[in-house]
């Protein structure tokens, strides 16, 4: 397998959890709810997926468990933010802190245990094709699920009546309520969908990306996913683009860190000079690249206030108490 193919494969693996988490959160925010608890939900999904896969031996059961756990965990947020009308920012933060704590507690038993890997797809003939074979037909199942979900969300939001209803709730919950649309029920469903997606993202981390459980293994991916939704102006295909951009940045800096200069001795002069320059950057700064990139991307997208106003779901994060 060539270097280019390997890099592209790892980019997909790095991008998939971001895409899964972000596409779920996009639906949540399109319904007008801001759930900052993505990081916590991902961790709960990761530990649940790992644990179930380990105890049952089946990684697929782990995936299903992760989605269910993610959805149930998000219900905690839903109950507080939707039924008790608590401040959504604080509640989302609480969900993250609780998720970090609970997953750390539950995962204590799994530290150091070798996990179960979710096997990649293999179609004889197709997967063996040069270059594109593995890229298109030989990836892990979560990759395909993430793409299907993205397409599904696009179709749902913009081509179905239910999706239109969800978008209307995000635009004006008072108008929706006055028309008899069941705002809270729709939001609960959206929140649970977001939770399930975040759970799946976590499962990808503990069953595909690595096959271990490490405390706090999301390392901020949940937050990056939140930034991606903003960056994408709440449009699904742009979330896809953003996830892969960030996947590329992550992989680039990992590769720079992992490559030894001695391996590059055969490169032409200017490239070798550039590579030496990159290698002289401390590894911590390279690791910081995805986080810094997130900040830059956020600044770029929010600069145009007019555009932001037009794209943001108008009732995002606002409290809703129905009068009856």
């Amino acid at each position: 397998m060539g270097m280019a193919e390997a890099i592209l494969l790892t980019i997909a693996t790095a991008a998939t959890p971001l895409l899964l988490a972000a596409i779920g959160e996009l639906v949540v925010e399109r319904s007008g709810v801001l759930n900052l608890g993505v990081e916590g939900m991902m961790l709960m999904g990761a530990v649940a997926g790992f644990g179930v896969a380990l105890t049952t031996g089946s990684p697929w059961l782990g995936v299903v468990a992760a989605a269910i756990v993610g959805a149930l965990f998000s219900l905690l947020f839903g109950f507080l933010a939707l039924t008790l009308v608590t401040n959504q920012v604080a509640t989302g933060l609480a969900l993250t802190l609780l998720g970090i704590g609970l997953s750390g507690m539950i995962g204590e038993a799994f530290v150091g245990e070798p996990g179960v890997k979710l096997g990649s797809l293999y179609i004889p003939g197709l997967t063996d094709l040069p270059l594109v074979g593995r890229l298109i037909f030989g990836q892990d199942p979560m990759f395909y699920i993430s793409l299907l979900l993205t397409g599904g969300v696009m179709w749902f939001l913009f081509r179905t009546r239910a999706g239109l209803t969800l978008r209307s709730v995000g635009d004006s919950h008072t108008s929706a309520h006055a028309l008899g649309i069941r705002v809270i029920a729709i939001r609960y469903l959206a929140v649970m969908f977001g939770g399930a997606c975040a759970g799946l993202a976590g499962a990808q981390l503990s069953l595909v990306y690595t096959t271990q459980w490490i405390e706090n293994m999301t390392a901020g991916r949940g937050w990056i996913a939140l930034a991606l939704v903003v960056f994408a102006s709440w449009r699904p295909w742009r979330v896809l683009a953003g996830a892969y951009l960030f996947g590329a940045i992550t992989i680039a800096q990992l590769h720079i860190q992992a490559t030894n200069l001695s391996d590059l001795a055969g490169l032409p002069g200017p490239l070798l000079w550039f590579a030496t320059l990159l290698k002289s950057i401390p590894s911590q700064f390279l690791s910081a690249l995805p986080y810094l990139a997130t900040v830059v991307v956020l600044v770029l997208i929010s600069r145009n206030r007019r555009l932001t106003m037009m794209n943001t779901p108008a009732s995002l994060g606002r409290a809703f108490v129905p009068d009856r």
Partner: protein
Amino acid sequence: MRLELVKRPQHSALFSALSPFLAFGLMVIAGAIIFAALGKNPATGLYAYFIQPLTEIWSLHELAIKAAPLILIAVGLCVCFLSNNWNIGAEGQFTIGAIFGGAIPLYFPDFQNYATLPLMLIFGAIGGALYAAIPALLKARFNTNEILTSLMLVYVAQLILDWLVRGPWRDPAAMSFPQAPAFHPWAIVPELFPMSGRANLGIVFALIAAVAVWFMLARTLKGFEIKVIGQSPRAGRFGGFSATRTIIFAFLVSGALAGLAGITEVSGAIGRLQPQISPGYGFAAIIVAFLGRLNPLGIVAAGLVLALSYLGGEAAQIEIGVTDKTVRAFQGMLLFFVLACDTLIHYQVRIVRPKPAQATESQTEAAHGHG
């Protein structure tokens, strides 16, 4: 059957006072359930967590040591949250404050006198403030979401610290341990009662900060400005207050206090710079701020409660063999309960069975007076 919220015409003063206690009580119950689920004796577990650390003097000192940074940071967060600026990056500002202050004994090792420590503390505060200025300026100038930017900067700050103590600032004498050289005695925060425990001036700083910020918020025009901008930005603009100036002010104050907490911690409890200098104080402080109902005086009590949870976790690990990872879980649950109980301050909660065309009490927000 459904849960219905009836908005109160005014905030309930009763529940404003009661809510934190209610939340604490619920957390204790939830904790008991978790202990039972883990196969441990709930009563022993709860005792180890919440009572035992209070029974010995040295332990009370430890309580003060842990509470000091929590209170310092939370008091600053309080100013931010009240003005609707969500500074989630206090952990990063804590770290940068430690770095800024800790640079002085490292670069000027011969500067050893009464002025060393105050200078370190001031620099720590400045460092924290400068780091907090980044998300503040991005929000003020570019309207960028401060939650995400301040949080990303936490990861960056930790990586900077990691690089420093493994690289340029590494103590050659420490062999395989990545750490900076220990601070000399003039650079260490003095202890209060050395005979009975380790508690140092940090707790004094925390109490002074709490009182000062309480006074500002409760009694001055500045405090009024902060609260109005946070509650009703348009009314604040109508009053002539500048949202931009408030953003900068809130973040600078919060960053300075977090930076002060950082340098106090490394030049007090720890004594040097090393890769890990905080068990998540910056995030636990968020919980302290809410548990203290965003009131600096309440935050003092709340800080002690969360400090207790840290000590309790260690004690429970020894007493009943449960992992100290329970600490973070408890803290997270506590915040959940605090937020849920706060609902009672604004609304009455009723369980409602819909009956045909008959008695359900419900109240809409009639305040606008339209129609």
